[in-house]
């Protein structure tokens, strides 16, 4: 009897101390490589294949880091956790297909835009819905939770007298699959991702386009505590001018001409006021 009691207590205590010790020591200190937060279930921007990070944002971020002469490591997180993690300085840089919005610009600082998207309405291939009938009359519409599409829909459609219901998903891939089952009638997603799903052979089609000219950018914590915003901006311009950017885009989305960098810089973003960090000749007056 005594044997069970003592040995159980002893081994459990030793194991507890060892485990807690080893796990706490994995935290990063300030001298380590910059941590780049990505949402790795968001092709073609960032995804994981065979255990390796891939995607436009991954390759471009690596190229920019080479330009800047810094070390980076990628940290994957679900999209809704990324901006809070950046605000809390758990990550140093956010690199994913991140849309610049006014609300986000209050919590984080954006680099110059490196892409521009418009949203599309996806419907099943055999559907006869058009862009107007797909977004009205009691339709259930899929969006990714926390995405700019959700914000746009809530601002412009859900609040008005159009009768629609938003279904929020963890990722667009599940939303598109749910549409195939028939649980939702359409999905609102950016045009770059939509093209990916169609290229992958999903039975869907684009019913129509919503021109929002949404800029995409990298982001750093508010106030740029690491002082890297200027070099990131210069790095983006450098890979654009050297042709490396075009090369990366061609690799992931063949046959597309990337929008010019810097793209549309909305007034509401304070880091886009002249002079832009690292690129003093740019910016809104």
């Amino acid at each position, binding site marked *: 009897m005594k044997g069970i009691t003592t040995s159980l207590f002893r081994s*459990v205590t030793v*194991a507890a101390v060892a485990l807690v010790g080893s*796990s*706490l020591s994995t935290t990063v200190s300030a001298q380590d490589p910059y941590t780049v937060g990505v949402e790795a*279930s968001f092709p073609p921007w960032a995804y*994981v294949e065979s255990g390796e990070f891939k995607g436009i944002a991954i390759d471009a971020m690596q190229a920019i880091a080479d330009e800047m002469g810094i070390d980076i490591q990628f940290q994957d997180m679900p999209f809704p956790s990324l901006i809070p993690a950046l605000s809390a300085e758990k990550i140093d840089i956010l690199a994913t297909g991140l849309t610049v919005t006014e609300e986000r610009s209050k919590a984080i600082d954006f680099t110059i835009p490196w892409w521009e998207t418009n949203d599309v309405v996806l419907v099943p291939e055999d559907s006869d819905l058009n862009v107007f009938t797909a977004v009205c009359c009691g339709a259930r519409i899929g969006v990714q939770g926390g995405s700019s599409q959700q914000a746009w829909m809530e601002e412009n459609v859900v609040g008005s007298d159009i009768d629609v219901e938003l279904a929020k998903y963890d*990722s667009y891939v*599940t939303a598109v699959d749910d549409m195939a089952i028939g649980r939702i009638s359409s999905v609102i997603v950016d045009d770059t991702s939509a093209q990916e799903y169609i290229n992958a052979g999903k039975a869907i089609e684009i019913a129509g386009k919503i021109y929002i000219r949404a800029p995409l950018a990298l982001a750093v914590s508010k106030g740029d505590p690491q002082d890297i915003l200027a070099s990131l901006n210069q790095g983006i311009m450098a890979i654009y001018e050297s042709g490396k950017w075009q090369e990366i885009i061609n690799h992931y989305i063949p046959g597309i001409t990337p929008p010019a960098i810097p793209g549309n810089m909305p007034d509401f973003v304070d880091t886009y006021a002249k002079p832009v960090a690292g690129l003093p000749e740019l910016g809104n007056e």
Partner: protein
Amino acid sequence: MDIYDVLIRDFPFLLKGLGVAIVLLAALLVIGFVLGMSICLLQLYGPKTRLLQWPLLLYERVFRGVPIIIMLFIFYYGISGVYDISAFAAAILAMGLRSAAYQSQIFRSAFQSVPAGQMMAARAMGMSKAKAIRHIIFPQAARHAIGPWTNEFSSEIKETSLAYVIGVVELTRQAHYIITSTQGNVLIVFAVVALLYFVLNRAGNSLLYAYERKLAVPGFEK
């Protein structure tokens, strides 16, 4: 490349994810065991002062009453203000502390199922309270606790899958990678993942049941 080829190619990564889940599980169960046992012993045999008993009760109520996903966020972002905690450590802490609240009640019921007269008899024979707990009550309570403890084990395995919300790349997140990089196949990938969780669950529970049989006192098996 069809989904089965991808699954075979990426199976090592699913196993890696399973490994992360197992380490997380082991760590949280150990924390839960040590703390839960302490809480139980203090609640049952500690000083009956409000100063001690109320905080214990509050702890147990709070950690059993708040969803684990909320706890994960609170621990990850909350602790970050004072200490740069890693996502993995935050997950272990949040889930371990919650498991402690559950385990304390498993142990309490096990200890209380030992007839109170035994403690009195032990004390009458001159044993100290601590000795009586260790030599008389605990060996019986431990046997009673294994059954309900398998429940805690099973539910915690499944809850490890929530750690991905703060960036712990465990089995479920690895499955997400395959689903999104192949643009679909939710059903097949999650079926494989479900099977992996099930196998782990069965293996763990079989071990616990075997331990229960091994400890069974001849003549007292039910």
